[in-house]
């Protein structure tokens, strides 16, 4: 299949100005750190980023925001980021806020070849403005369209040379739907193994959805909210 590429820089080499990207992760958990770093190095601009969050000031998508590479964010929650706030208030950055489940399902719809889905989320709120409302069995739903992204960039725990992916714990989050939803899907993994080494029953994203894969390195895996209890 020859999906294995050498590096993050090679993975993103044809991501050009104005591209629409899906970026996996929830908060800083399960984000494609290596690809984000490569996009920062590439200095590609005017990006539309579909990502549940926008990182923090000095990590994740925040690094791209700092360089003003992002034209528009499509997210469900964008707190924790002062530079983001500054750009938003100054009008430099466009933001479309959508409910988290709607975001997840619109990515999934793309991967399932469904042009649109119905969800009750946002009915009766400003999210519903301009959208088609339809009643099924006495309940109102909004018609929401599948996303159409040029590239999906995801992070998995393990992957194989055929592009099959396995995620770890809650680092799974948006990664599987985005992996399915991009026209070209780039996966970075902590461990890349030869095809045949992963149990076919354990695979979360079948390789058919993945076009490029590489083993990332130096994962920081920053923790956003370190909450602990004392040992008794």
């Amino acid at each position, binding site marked *: 299949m020859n999906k294995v590429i050498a590096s993050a820089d090679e993975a993103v080499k044809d991501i050009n100005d104005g591209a629409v990207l899906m970026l996996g992760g*929830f*908060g*800083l*958990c*399960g984000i494609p750190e290596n690809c984000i770093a490569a996009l920062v190095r590439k200095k590609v601009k005017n990006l539309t980023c579909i990502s*549940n969050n926008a990182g923090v000031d000095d990590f994740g998508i925040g690094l791209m925001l700092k360089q003003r590479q992002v034209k528009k964010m499509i*997210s*469900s*929650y*964008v*707190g924790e980021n002062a530079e983001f*706030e500054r750009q*938003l*208030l100054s009008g430099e950055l466009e933001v479309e*806020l959508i*409910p*988290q*489940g*709607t975001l*997840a*399902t619109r*990515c*999934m719809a793309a991967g399932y070849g469904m042009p649109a889905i119905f*969800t*009750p*989320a*946002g*009915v*009766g*709120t*400003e*999210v519903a403005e301009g959208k088609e409302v339809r009643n099924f069995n006495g309940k109102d739903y909004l018609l929401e369209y599948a996303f159409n992204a040029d590239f999906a960039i995801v992070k998995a*725990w393990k992957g194989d040379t055929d592009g099959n992916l396995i*995620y*770890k*714990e*809650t*680092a*799974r*989050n*948006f*990664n*599987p*739907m985005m992996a399915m939803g991009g026209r070209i899907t780039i996966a970075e993994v902590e461990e890349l193994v030869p095809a045949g080494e992963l149990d076919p029953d354990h695979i*979360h994203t079948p390789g058919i959805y993945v076009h490029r894969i590489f083993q990332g390195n130096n994962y920081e*895996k*920053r*923790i*956003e*909210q*370190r*909450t*602990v*209890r*004392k*040992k008794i």
Partner: protein
Amino acid sequence: MALTKEQIAQRIARELRDGYYVNLGIGIPTLVANYIPQGINVVLQSENGLLGMGPFPFEGEENPDLINAGKQTITTVPGSAFFDSALSFGMIRAGKVDLTVLGAMEVSEEGDIANWKIPGKMVKGMGGAMDLVASAKNIIVAMMHTNPKGESKLLPKCALPLTGVKCVKKIVSDIAVLDVTPNGFKLLERAPGVTVEEIKIKTAGKLIVEGDIPEMTF
């Protein structure tokens, strides 16, 4: 005396039934997990993709791959399962989550809720709140009865942008427990030492008071 946040959580925990799948929002709702009654088994859902959320990890055992919807480091309990966020909201939409507890800035007497946006302030986003309130079978709101200015948060109509409409079933505030009924807020219980009169004053929406209103005990 008004309830503490811990007491609000403790009171809400009494609504839990054995076998419930529960989604707890950020803030006071999170504290509910600390007061699950003896003999009651509930499974906590975290909408980023986990059933079977456990307590915070011991110091030094934090796992960056294991966080809750509030992005806090957590643990799992035996029987937990991970899944993607689409399935997570799928089970929420399908009504498989028995109880959702969340905070609110305003609740209307019809059960509308506002908790995500204040005009003029930086808007961080609704996260999963709109999905949860639109789909949950049973929503309990945990909140202060009045805002810092002393104004009622239980209103005839919400003034703030809505998160969802006609969805809140019950409110546990610092001074009262109320059901949201077709006829308005029905007072069920009052905080220890808090009078019905005080609750009336602090409730701007239609309040229904029938018979003796019992005092909560802790």
